[in-house]
């Protein structure tokens, strides 16, 4: 079986057996990271970076608004 067929099969597998797929079915997931709560560290870092970038955009937005008012 070529790899493409295999991948397609693997993608369609949970549709045939959703209950089996949800239980893991022998597939190694990051369960340890979830059980000891370290996943929240990752989420905190990602969310902080996102908030930082968005605050930068908001600041830029306000600065532009001020400039546009000055133009008129």
């Amino acid at each position: 079986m070529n790899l493409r067929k295999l991948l397609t099969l693997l993608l369609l597998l949970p549709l045939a057996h959703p209950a089996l797929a949800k239980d893991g079915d022998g597939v190694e997931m990051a369960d340890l990271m979830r059980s000891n709560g370290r996943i929240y560290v990752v989420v905190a870092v990602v969310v902080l970076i996102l908030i930082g970038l968005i605050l930068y955009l908001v600041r830029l937005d306000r600065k532009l608004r001020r400039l546009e008012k000055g133009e008129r």
Partner: protein
Amino acid sequence: MAFPLFLLRFKRRDFSMNKSWWKVLTVALLLYACIGGFLLPVPALPALQETIRNLYFHVCMWFGMMILFTISLVHSIRYLRTFDLKYDIYARQYAIVGILFGVLGYATGIIWMSYTWADPNNPAFESFGALAREPKLIGAAIALLIYFAYLVLRDSIGDLDKKARISAVYNIFAYAMLFPSIWILPRLLPSLHPGGEGNPALNFSDIDADMRMVFYPAVLGWTLLGVWITTLSIRIRLLQEKKMLPI
């Protein structure tokens, strides 16, 4: 109670007055995508494992790119109908941010691919040979190169009206080339990339219900972020133009 007050002030100044409610929506959707994307359940699939969560980031970049290029096309057509240089600026900025999203989609795809497609039993060089023949990668590269050429073409013409007219026509051509290079050809050829048989991730039957809960908001959030960035760069550009042209 300082924090809710800050929110109210933010709302009064930015939310209602300037019709930018969609910026608040962008932030909410992206926070949801980043938190839910890591914490909500996903199907356990061999080879993909937890990397399936990349769907909320990598695929959203391509969706965002396609939507931004579509907006760019609309503005190019509007330019050709009205010859208003404003629309030329809009089209250019949307194309630039679309290219940015495409490059990010490509780069994230490279990382994802090297952990899920590369065969550990093969020497790295042979694996790379197989990956380099991927029709989706080649198609996406061609599409992005055509858009790079759009920018090169624009900036090589000095005359403002000629520049705007030629690049608007070229933009329509570049958009048309997206369809064979990223929609049609990769589906005719065998590929490791999922979604060759239909619309990847859009099809209701090939994406898990749990994942759809995060995926669609994530697509909308990332696209709106792209639109936000574009509107900022358009406003900068318009200010620059006003300073240069004595209108």
